[in-house]
């Protein structure tokens, strides 16, 4: 269970780093834990180049959930200074949605847990 907690913490680290790299003026992250899933929501305000940020989020969060990649590469999440780390987050979540306009970006990530 400790590793599962660490994985979620690293995912949050990666997402936070991503928004800060795009010079967001405000970043809010919430974590909701349920019996069968963990939901991470993040909202960022007034990013520079928000179009590019959305493009990158779409690119990397569209990675399908890949348990084999997660087990091998999860430790790299939050460690990188590059956007490739976001791809690892993509392999660790089952659903991802992005809501955005030119001021805000909100993402909603669902990670199913348990034996699967």
């Amino acid at each position, binding site marked *: 269970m400790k590793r599962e907690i660490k994985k979620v913490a690293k995912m949050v680290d990666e997402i936070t780093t991503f928004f800060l*790299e*795009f*010079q967001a003026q405000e970043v809010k992250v919430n974590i909701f834990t349920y019996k069968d899933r963990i939901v991470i929501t993040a909202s960022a305000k007034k990013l*520079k*180049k*928000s*179009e*590019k940020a*959305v*493009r990158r989020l*779409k*690119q990397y*969060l*569209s*990675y*399908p*959930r*890949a*348990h*084999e*990649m*997660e*087990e*091998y*590469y*999860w*430790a*790299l999440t939050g*460690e*990188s*200074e*590059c956007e*490739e780390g976001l*791809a*690892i987050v993509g*392999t660790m*979540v*089952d*659903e*991802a*949605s*992005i*809501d*955005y*306009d*030119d*001021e805000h970006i909100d993402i909603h990530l669902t990670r199913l847990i348990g*034996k*699967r």
Partner: protein
Amino acid sequence: METIKKSETIKKSEFKFVLETKVPKVKTVDMYKVLLILPTIFLIVGIIISSPQGFINGFKQIRLASNILITDYFEIAGIGPALINSAILMYANILLLYKLELKPNGIIIGALFLVGGFALMGKNIYNTGPFYLGGLLYCKYHNKQYKTVVIINMLSTALSPLCSTLTSIEVYPYYVGLILMIVAGTAVGFIMPTISSHVMTAHSGYSLYNMGFACGFVGIIVYAVISGVGLKPEALSIIYTDSTLLPMIIMIVYCLALIIIGYKLNNRSFEGFRDIFNYSGRVMTDFVQQVGFPLTIINMGVLGLMSILVVIVMGGQFNGPVLAAIFSVIGFSAFGKHLKNSFPIMIGVTLASLLLKEPVSSTTLIMTALFSTGLAPIAGEFGTWRGISVGMLHMFLVLNLGSLHGGMMLYNNGFAAGIIAMLLVPMMEAFKREKGLD
């Protein structure tokens, strides 16, 4: 205030592709069919060129060998049995991946080619089995599905010479060696999932051969223990030196086939291929996801042909170890390698070889040049000149690492690549100016 677009949901379960560039979809079963081409060629050619007696004798030699680096199966068993051995291991692993319902991605393809390649110089169905057993136990212990660790198991078979060595020692009866082999292989299979993910952070994903780095350290400890109790294995360098025209033709045909199939699957075009060069190759750059399966196999074919050209230009032979190196280039061309980030590293190795005072066989030199491309992300991220310099360092380092693990770990170049990336990347980052968002 203009709104760009509102509320978009990425439905991963439908694998809806949301990138601007449209990537042709390829069914999972069709991907596996493409991956089956090489083992099928190997099996057919292997059967044609082997006599039944030669096949039996060859397999006996493979089973009894200590498989210490470098043990070329072309030399000890013959080309036919070696090709069949590689085909069997690739078939077994493809079947396992398919049964686990895994969709081929970059690391799956990379792992598959590493297993197939090293099945020409150290891996066989006999000495790799215990690692998978260890993975199964790990999953049972941690209540996970086996598919989470299968790739780690495939890659951790780098330590298969350990299993072979334990059965080939004549101090104790054979069955004792067999038990020791199962226990040791299972133990390694059990511990590698945590070790491999732990060491990943040391090189920050700048070495594509992370398992070589992880297994290198395990190999040092294992070798120290085995040597300490007086069972030190003999250092080997068994290399095939006869004609290797047939393996060369097979590899050329295979690489051309990959390019042609990729071209057809990509709507009969190479459109988008140049986009691959925009990626640094750093973990995790999965080309199957980023540019699609068709362009990925075109990239694999192109880098395969480049590797073959390198071997020809350097006057080398297409023996087991060199084929293993070519396999590693082809496989990891689905997971980060491309011409632009691989070539500088190989130039560095070649330049360093000109400075060497000690004699090095052409096979060792070519293996190093090809395997060194595990450092391709460094050239991709930091540029050509730094890529060349790490290639040079790789050449010098790799020649001195084998003695640390006594050849009990097959991914010696991966070990060297991990050490170089771990030390040099922080230094390079210190000199890298902060870039703007543009």
